[in-house]
């Protein structure tokens, strides 16, 4: 469904991605794991158009997205929930969610109802401004806002970052639920253990190159992965 081929991205003179290939099939959860500075966030930002690749192709159902401006991509069905949640801090929960459906006139309130039923905490706080929410609630809001965009593919960047163990579990549970409801998900996670637990397939990125890929369960058994990313000595 989503295919990334030979993607190169530069920050100034530094090459952050050195030709990566990646594929997400419909209905999958694909995890992208790797160390700091490996290029995980860069990959997502490039797919969602925030960064321009130096070369390479990004296609969704064979439609070339490489030259589509960033703001169009969410309308194409690529929705990116960025690292650090990035809710609109001085707007209410409801306004944040409505913005998720920006540009769409139909069925907005129905979608709003669906998100509220998925995240009852948000429904309770729908008139609070986003900056007054706790970290976990903000993450729910960010994901909810993403869902409002009716994603064909939902890209989550470090949804567990900075959350306590219980919340991390809750967020992963929610991701599984969303997936079971039919969403295709590309997940970037530092918490490789959890990510591999829920993913169908996974990629391992190191210094801008894909070094491993395969079924998530296989990778979770791979000794190199276990040593580098699962913290086994």
């Amino acid at each position: 469904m989503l295919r990334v081929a030979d993607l190169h991205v530069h920050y100034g003179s530094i090459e952050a991605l050195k030709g990566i290939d990646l594929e997400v099939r419909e209905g999958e959860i694909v995890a992208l794991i790797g160390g700091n500075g490996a290029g995980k966030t860069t990959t997502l930002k490039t797919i969602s158009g925030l960064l321009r690749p130096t070369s390479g192709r990004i296609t969704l159902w064979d439609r070339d997205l490489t030259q589509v401006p960033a703001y169009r991509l969410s309308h194409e069905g690529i929705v990116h929930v960025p690292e650090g949640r990035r809710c609109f801090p001085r707007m209410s929960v409801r306004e944040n969610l409505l913005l998720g459906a920006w540009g769409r006139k139909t069925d907005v309130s129905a979608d709003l109802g669906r998100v509220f039923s998925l995240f009852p905490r948000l429904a309770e706080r729908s008139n609070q401004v986003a900056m007054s929410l706790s970290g976990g609630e903000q993450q729910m809001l960010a994901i909810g806002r993403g869902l409002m965009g009716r994603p064909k593919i939902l890209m989550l960047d470090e949804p567990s970052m900075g959350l306590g163990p219980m919340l991390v579990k809750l967020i992963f549970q929610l991701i599984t639920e969303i997936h079971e409801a039919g969403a295709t998900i590309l997940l970037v996670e530092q918490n490789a253990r959890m990510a591999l637990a829920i993913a169908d397939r996974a990629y391992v990125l190191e210094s801008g190159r894909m070094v491993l890929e395969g079924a998530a369960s296989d990778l979770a058994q791979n000794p190199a992965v276990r040593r580098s990313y699962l913290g086994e000595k």
Partner: protein
Amino acid sequence: MRIPRVPRPLRPRVLTSRRQLGAVLDRRGLLLLGLVAIAAPVAAPSDFFVRIFILALIYVVLSSGLNVVVGYAGLLDLGYVAFYAVGAYYTSILTVRVAIEGWGISPQDLWWLFFLDLVVAGLLAALVGVLLGYPTLRLRGDYLAIMTLGFGEIVRIVATNWVDLTNGVAGIRGVPLPAVDGYVLRSPVLLYYVVLGLAGLAVFGISRAVRSYVGRAWIAIREDELVAEVMGIHAQRYKLLAYAFGAFYAGMIGVFFAHLQQYVNPQSFTFWENILLVALVILGGQGTIWGPALGAVIWTVAAGTALSVPFVQQHPETRFMALGLLVVVAVIFFPKGLLGGRKLRLEESSANGSEEAAADRQQARGAGEAGVDPGRFLSLPAPDPNGVLLRCSAISASFGGLQALKPTDLEVRAGEILGIIGPNGAGKTTIFNVITGVVPRRTGEIRVGEHVVGRVRPSAITRLGIARTFQSIRLFREMTVLENVMVGAHMRMRANFLSVLWRTGHARMQERTAHREAEELLRYVGLWEYRAAEAGSLPYGFQRRLEIARALMTRPRVLFLDEPAAGMNPTETDELGSLIRRIRDDGVTVVLIEHVMRLLMEVSDRVVAFEQGEKIAEGTPAEVQANPLVIEAYLGPES
């Protein structure tokens, strides 16, 4: 025959100054520049150009002085010209209205007053700078700009309307030309050399100031005032110093201007002048030594020579249309200024293979081999009798009615690693903020050892041996890695401002010591190779470590780490764990907020758990992990 090079002593200048200079200007370059400056009036085809050069040099002083405030300390000042006015009016009033008209002294006998006034007016302007700067200290960014604009206008309007003192718009006439022992410097060429001397003095003084710990403090404030404060920099004091120092030069050159014109009136000190000066600083490159000077020369000479172009003479407004266009084009193509934005990057730093750098490296390595113990810098005072370093009793904090931290007791014992856990919004970071003075506490008492901490600025708390890092990394991104760490030495820099300008032996030695310590700390955290890289260009995990090194540079008794492992993978997290242990073993007590339980539970001696602004559990890691309240609120079952 080859003469073996003797390794030179370690020179801190090498790494720090070049980047700040913007354009690299070595000794040869300086010499050449000096020669060009000296030859300029002789080479000039007519006195008209000499007059333009004189104006250009006046603007060099003004823009360089303003650069201290805007470019280094990061305070957008739209009222700087007021200090220039203070200097010009001070000398005019004293010379003409008091001495010549009031006391009937002949101008010939007053020639020395000009030279005296250069200094006195500079000091007076500095004083006014402090007075005007004081009420603006709380303001940030654009508010500050508008307020300084207001001050500038007020000074001008008062000068216009206080006729008894300033003679209003009519101005003060008959200010004598500069003279030496009665010989009047009537020739523009001689006047040029006077102002060249003043400009040289200004650029020299400013370059010395900014290449010292004072300059680092200014840049730190510009980059992140709160963090600068936490590094022990009394931000308000240094902002005032920037105002005063910048104002000094404006006052000084104002004196020259008045005597050059033999006349002052408020029309020379308009808002337009302020705008122009800010534009010159930005166009040339704010925060570089030569940028603003270059901007001033280009602008003045271009605007001046345009006066001779027949087309411009017929359509005078095109002179300013062209300048306007030029500004837009220049800003679009050089947004950081002509000399700005030339930074040493990661790759360049290793390519910086000059002999000097090599000598540096060798020297530093030598020092390491000589068995210097990194922990030496982490020297600790003797622990207090109860073994408690920090005791908080019933401290609390609230924002806008929301009580973020309910009255809480907390003690930190010497030599331990204390872990703090809790869900988001539980008040963990707030505790850090209250202890480090970043957030005012509503109630309670904090003791460091025997010392009761009053309601003081963060910098004062840092002086008590408390250092911290931030949850979201807050480095001085535009400074190099080494400079970042050196900022941490700020509290130990005792050379006063004058000896910094004079670069006394004491000041130099101090700078060298800080440099050496910073390099060793960088080696301690494993970042030595990156010391010349810009901090913002480091990978994320390195930035975390750099923040720790910078905090350690303040030689703390207690180090507060706020989620240092956030965003690290397990391998990095493990490395971080051993670094934290090493820091503790070297004698620094550590307080650690962390969500990564594997790390926290492994390294902590004790753990405190918070929820909703309250302490809910305290004990050994095992105890806390087993605490049902903690499990319910935070860890969840099966942890």
